[in-house]
């Protein structure tokens, strides 16, 4: 039996008696396995009026029912056991349910992915649990059409040395660990030891990390042994007498993501396992901490680090536009290798400054706006090719951006012959190399319709693919075979025109 918690008046318009109404009904099943899910919270949100919501609880056989719904599109969401999921959720895009005359919206099967998990325990060379260690999880995946190794979580081990990552999508994962032996004592040479950053299944370099392949819903259990080694010491030079300094050590992990490594010791001295690190430092000047940059260190034995050799990597620049810039405007930069993103605030006068940029390859967008796009870009201090800004360590990058208004939406329908296709991935592949790494995207709703939002003017090839999971569409070698059957359009489209796109099968 379905227990309905209806907020009827929220959805119905005032003349509900004269307006035909419709139902959304279906079942929630676990995926994989197709077992009915009893007791899940099922929510509907009207796409055009997001404040109008309904919710119900699935019955014994996973069934749910919403009735008296006006014709519209609804986003469907299920929450169960602390996790939530939209209908056919893929990277934030989902398939909305259309209701109206001649649309079947009463036989929905909501496949609820239970997600997998990676659990484990950390022990030292004596078999003792390691508490207080930091465990990093990385996911090798396709994100926004790019192959990336992204951070998928971080946790601390408890007193029993155990850790757990739940609700994981199927795919390839890496685990890295940093910590300190619980018995380490800097003042005792025999106990002056450290753990090197360690990657599952025990290697101490990112290249030696062993991938963990997680099937849908699978539970993986691992054990990692950390082996203490004699610590090496890095003395800091270049400090004024009694000047306080804060240092942080990091190592580049899988995909280029940063792993923080604790360096222990007094002011001006770092005690750490031998290895390659990036050392960043802040010093106290007249009661204010100031950042002095970072430098790479190969710690093979006791050594001295000259703080004066530190460098800062920065991105500064200016945005110019006709008319005033809106408040809150930002430059959004995204690391192509690991998905790490930064928002660089843009001032009223269009200037921006970010002195904490990590070296890497970035794509750029105007952020916090649905009006402005990057029309023109000139770059000093870095290269910008095919939509990728390549920032070297210590680079002082200066961007001159011309922003313009005029982004538009494209509406259309995804078809297989004449039949609408639900859940297809719709891509607008830009032909302008300035935007080569940013692809506007949508997912067709249950009636096959879609909206590609906020497209800058220009020529695009519109491509529809029936199964977009893990499709690296931003990689030229992957998308090229689909372009031939795509539809080339010049944006903005003529007023009121809509696209009809034939859906291609996944290659």
């Amino acid at each position, binding site marked *: 039996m379905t227990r309905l*918690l209806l907020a009827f008046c929220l959805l119905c318009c005032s003349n509900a008696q004269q307006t035909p109404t419709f139902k959304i009904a279906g079942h929630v099943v676990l995926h994989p396995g197709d077992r009915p899910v*009893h*007791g899940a*919270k099922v929510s509907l949100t009207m796409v055009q009026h997001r404040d109008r919501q309904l919710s119900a609880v699935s019955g014994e056989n996973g069934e749910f029912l919403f009735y008296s719904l006006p014709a519209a599109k609804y986003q469907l969401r299920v*929450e*169960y*056991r*602390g*996790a*939530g999921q939209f209908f056919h959720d893929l990277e934030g895009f989902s398939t909305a349910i259309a209701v109206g005359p001649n649309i079947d919206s009463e036989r929905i099967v909501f496949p609820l992915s239970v997600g997998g*998990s990676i659990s484990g325990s950390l022990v030292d060379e*004596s078999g*003792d*649990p390691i*508490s207080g260690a930091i465990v990093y999880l990385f996911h090798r995946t396709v994100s926004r059409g790019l192959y990336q190794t992204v951070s998928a979580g971080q946790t601390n081990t*408890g*007193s*029993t*040395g155990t850790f*757990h990552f*739940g*609700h994981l999508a199927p795919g390839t994962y890496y685990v890295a660990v940093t910590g300190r032996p*619980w*018995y380490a*004592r800097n*003042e*005792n040479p*025999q*106990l002056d030891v450290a753990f090197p950053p360690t990657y599952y299944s025990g290697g101490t370099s990112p290249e030696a990390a062993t991938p963990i392949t997680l099937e849908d819903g699978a539970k993986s259990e691992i054990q990692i042994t950390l082996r203490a080694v004699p610590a090496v010491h890095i003395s800091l030079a270049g400090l004024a007498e009694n000047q306080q300094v804060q240092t942080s050590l990091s190592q580049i992990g899988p995909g280029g993501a940063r792993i923080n490594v604790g360096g222990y010791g007094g002011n001006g001295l770092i005690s750490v396992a031998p290895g390659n690190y990036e050392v960043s430092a802040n010093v106290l000047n007249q009661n204010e901490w100031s950042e002095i940059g970072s430098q790479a260190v190969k710690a093979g034995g006791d050594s001295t680090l000259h703080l004066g050799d530190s460098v800062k990597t920065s991105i500064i620049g200016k945005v110019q536009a006709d008319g005033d810039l809106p408040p809150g405007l930002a430059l959004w930069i995204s690391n192509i290798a690991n998905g790490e993103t930064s928002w660089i605030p843009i001032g009223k006068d269009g200037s921006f400054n970010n002195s904490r940029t990590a070296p890497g390859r970035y794509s750029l967008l105007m952020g916090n706006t649905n009006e402005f796009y990057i029309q023109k870009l000139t770059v000093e201090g870095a290269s910008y090719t095919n939509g990728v800004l390549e920032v070297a360590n210590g680079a002082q990058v200066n961007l001159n951006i011309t922003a313009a208004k005029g982004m538009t939406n494209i509406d259309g329908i995804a078809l297989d012959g004449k039949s609408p296709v639900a859940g297809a991935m719709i891509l607008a592949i830009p032909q302008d190399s300035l935007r080569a790494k940013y692809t506007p995207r949508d997912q067709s709703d249950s009636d096959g319709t879609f909206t590609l939002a906020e497209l800058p003017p220009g020529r695009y090839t519109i491509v529809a693919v029936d199964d977009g999971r893990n499709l690296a569409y931003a990689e030229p070698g992957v998308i090229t075979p689909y372009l031939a059957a795509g539809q080339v359009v010049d944006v903005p489209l003529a007023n009121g025109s809509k696209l009809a796109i034939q859906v291609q099968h996944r290659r």
Partner: protein
Amino acid sequence: MTRLSPQMFRIFFLLLPSALVSAQVEPPHHTITGTVVNALTGEPIRHALVDLHGIVQKSALTGPDGRFQIEDVAEGQVMFSAQKPGFFDPNSLPASQWSPSIPWSTVGSAKNDFLLKLLPGARLLGRVTNSDGEPLEGASLHILNERAWQGHKQWANNSVNADEDGLFRADDLTPGRYVVFAHGPQAEVTAPAYYPNAPDIESAQAIDLRPGQEFRADFRLRSERGYRVTGQILGVPSTNGVGLSFQNADGETLQFQVSFDAANGQFVAPSVPSGTWTLLAFAGDNEGHQYQARQEISVNHADVANVQIMLHPNAVIPVTVNHSTAPSAGVEGSIVATLISVDQPIFQMNGMQQQGDPPVLSFLNVTPGKYKLDVQGYAHECLESAWYGSIDLTHDYLLLGPDAGVQPIVINLRADCATLTAKLRPADQQRAGVVLIVPTSSIAEPKVLQLQPQQPNQTFNRIPQSLPLSPGAYQVYAFTSPEGLEYSNPQVLRAYPSQSVTLAPGQNTELTVELSEPK
């Protein structure tokens, strides 16, 4: 049996080197050995860390047989501490049957072989499900450990969350009395409960954990319908946002979802189960002032709308101290004054701070409530009277309303203090202890006088064993340790032997006390 509290443990370390250095004779050095064992089973513990605290601190790890060796240790008194994951050192415990009777060891010319004992930690684990038996992932478990701190009973809180299967565990717990509180995740509305299924802490089952014990506490939280609680926070001081949380009557913070719209001050808590809750709102302005408001909300199987909560700045109460003689440099710091809340489920106290030049003494960030003032004078001054307007704070409580104006607290000190000197019976001279001096003619907190053990070969003792006291009537108690003892509660102290004493102005009284073991 003598027990050393963690505080006294530290004091002892501070004392020891100076006591030995004072002899100014380089003592002979020895190699010492020892074994670390499981105190319950006697089994040796491998790879345990032994720290030796003496003139110089030294460390060693035990081998596979639990044995350790430390070279070049100066003759004299030392203290050992040992560590091993999953175990704890009995020295670190509050007074209990697990604490060692003698806290230090002597390194001498004879065989220096020592036995160190570690206790295995206890564990609480269980599973949290809803009415249908489905696991409640993300349910929060508050592991509450009964403690007495500064003589006040309180529950130390350690939280863990249930995993996808509803399972939770809390390891390495020290022995003592525990209560477990569970409440469901935001995604699913359930009625919070104390183990096994009690609505409040008073009716909860106390779990007395012994070292190494494992206790299973399963919860089946009743699935409930959630109701919508909406309203507005008024008096928001800045755009920095407002913190909102729900608490139950025992002061436990709950995870009910609540959102706040800074633009209009409206808040929405969409799924609150039926019950009586306290909504706590707090904020800060750009000048560093804290604001707070509490409002009780009764959800009785229906939505609650139009709740209005007015934020008020927490009070800053200036303090005027009238010394008995003209103050000399630093004399303002020669009293310690504290406001102790007496109407909150969680023990809170505000210390006094000194600000600016010239110095102004004040209690900062005082939230509305009922308080007791406690003053301890030093430098031969003691409390004569304390006033908040016309309220005599030596006999009455300070009641602070949410938006009432604040008056200064006036503290008058006197110089004709009485002095109470306590000494232990000869048989107890080498034991540590505390003397509690409980005023019977005012509401002031008991005064605590630490008695340090007399060391062998120690010719002086730096810790004073007397206190300047306001003239009046007192009950005097003596304990091996105040740790774990709810000594601010007269009912608790009534079970122990005591001596009555009435102190006249300027009177010096010496008492010989007999140490009691706290129960």
